[in-house]
């Protein structure tokens, strides 16, 4: 059985003009990357590596200078209007810093309704919004509808971002540093939610992260970006356990990790 390819980036290139000069900076240089149905791909790199630009291109928020972006069989650059919107609905973003991706003056209800425009009536939207909030652990959903984003904790805002993303039944979620706003002790809750949604709905993930440990535990495949290029990609084990590229090796080694086995008993030793 061949698995369906959801997203296919081919030789994508994007240059930006450096401010105040005519100098071009290659943010993304000839990058090819695929995401198949139901799998998790991590795009790993440091700031300035071009990983977030690539994510924006994948989402159709930015047009590449060269190369193609094919989503569920449709080349994005050939689509317009209604057709583009209906194809793009299948792919939803979760942005870095969930706090900043919500309008601070609009309620949770308003934020959820954005993703539920396809439903017929406000009553339907409301019922569905409550279901989705419940599903992501903002319970009871009703009690969250009239809150404002700043009244939620970092972890709760992250859940809200996830609820909004799954509202339109996407086949692919592009998550840019999805844990950046969440405290360490609640990170696992957010990750378990993403894992559960994948199991339930077969959602595929393209996760953009600087966190190697997270990529290692989450992704089936990893692509490492450096200075706009993918320097190495492959199965997570191959890339992160036996990196072939010098930069990947440097990156893997730089990650501070807690060494030694986890103590089996918490305390009272």
């Amino acid at each position, binding site marked *: 059985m061949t698995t369906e390819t959801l997203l296919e980036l081919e030789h994508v290139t994007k240059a930006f003009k450096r401010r105040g000069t005519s100098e071009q900076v290659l943010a993304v240089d000839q990058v090819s990357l695929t995401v198949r149905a139901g799998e998790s791909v991590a795009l790993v790199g440091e700031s300035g590596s071009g990983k977030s630009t690539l994510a924006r291109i994948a989402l159709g928020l930015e047009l590449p200078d060269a190369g193609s972006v094919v989503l569920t069989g449709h080349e994005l650059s050939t689509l317009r209007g209604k057709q583009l919107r209906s194809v793009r609905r299948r792919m939803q973003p979760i942005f870095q810093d969930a706090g900043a991706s919500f309008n601070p003056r609009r309620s949770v209800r308003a934020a959820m309704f954005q993703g539920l425009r396809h439903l017929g009536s406000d009553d339907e939207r409301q019922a569905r919004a409550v279901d989705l909030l419940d599903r992501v652990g903002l319970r009871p959903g009703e009690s969250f509808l009239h809150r404002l984003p700043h009244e939620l904790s970092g972890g709760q805002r992250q859940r809200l971002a996830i609820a909004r993303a799954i509202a339109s039944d996407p086949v692919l979620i592009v998550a840019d540093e999805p844990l950046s706003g969440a405290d360490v002790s609640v990170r*696992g809750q957010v*990750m378990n939610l993403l894992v559960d949604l994948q199991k339930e709905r077969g959602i595929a993930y393209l996760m953009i992260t600087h966190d190697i440990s997270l990529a290692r535990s989450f992704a089936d495949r990893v692509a490492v970006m450096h200075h706009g290029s993918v320097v190495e990609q492959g199965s997570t084990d191959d890339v992160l356990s036996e990196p072939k590229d010098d930069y990947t090796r440097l990156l893997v080694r730089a990650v501070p990790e807690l060494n030694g086995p986890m*103590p089996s008993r918490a305390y009272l030793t």
Partner: protein
Amino acid sequence: MSAPILSINDLQVTYHASDRQVFALQGATLKAGASETIGVVGESGSGKSTIARAALGLLPSGVAEITGGSIAINGRDVTGLRRRDWQPLRGKPIAMVFQDPLSFLNPVMRVDRQIGEAIRRHAPQRSTKDRVVDLLELVQLPASVARSYPHELSGGMRQRVLMAVALACEPSLLIADEPTTALDVTTQAEIVKLLRDIQRTLGVSVLLISHNLAVVAELCDQMYVMYAGRVVESGPADEILSHPGHPYTYGLMTAARSLRDADGRYATIAGDVPSLAERFVGCPFAARCPVAMEHCTQLAPPPTSVAGQANHVAACWHLVEGKGRDDHRDIAGAGARHEGVQA
């Protein structure tokens, strides 16, 4: 034995906002002696930055109030010190570097002048030029950086310049508040290494404040774990990491590893980081604790020694009572069970 450089005892700090109060520190105790590396670990709202600010007299006046406990520097009580009396204590004996160097460096002043100012403040008679070069070398920057403006430097280089400014004051204790958080992992590793080098070369004490347990584990000998305005566990870092005494410390250790269990689930702590709008009567972690007992929310547990080590203490009733050992199954397992996310 001489007095520690910094000694904070059962400190309580409350912030007064127009419509509410935040009980930022609810009893935090911490000591920094000579030539030590000390790490303070905590999540947002744990009070770790408030403790650093209190140690330098930098609590916002009119907003923050010290409602209990004490701060002593080199044995001298400075708890109620007025703003201007703090001035001679800043930089030396205690200097601080912050998370975001750009907001503490003057954007229109070259690096050499900024370091020079700090040198002159503490030793007005000395020629600064050679000393600037020495300090740049100490933070492993080329001498050419002296003529640069902050915006011409990378994030990691700015952090090094800020360290040079702090070290110009010849502190005996350097407090670093999340110095690597805004940096990439490769740069972060370099800064941690630099802190270690500086500590060894100069014999200065380093107090590192971080949310990143692994960074603290890598650098520090002594460790303090903060939760909801309190120090819940303290002791030698390797002791804490091999025998965590507080369920929160254990939970944080598992969560920080980003590991998945046999069912593919990530270890986590149920619930959310608490708001500090209330004063906790009992253990602040009780509401999220997988092994909480009935009285945990009603009575604050006293600091109790862990694994028979006098210098390793944690505040947990389980340690006090030392009973019910066999009831405590793996906390990670219990944590996953309690997690409020599943459908």
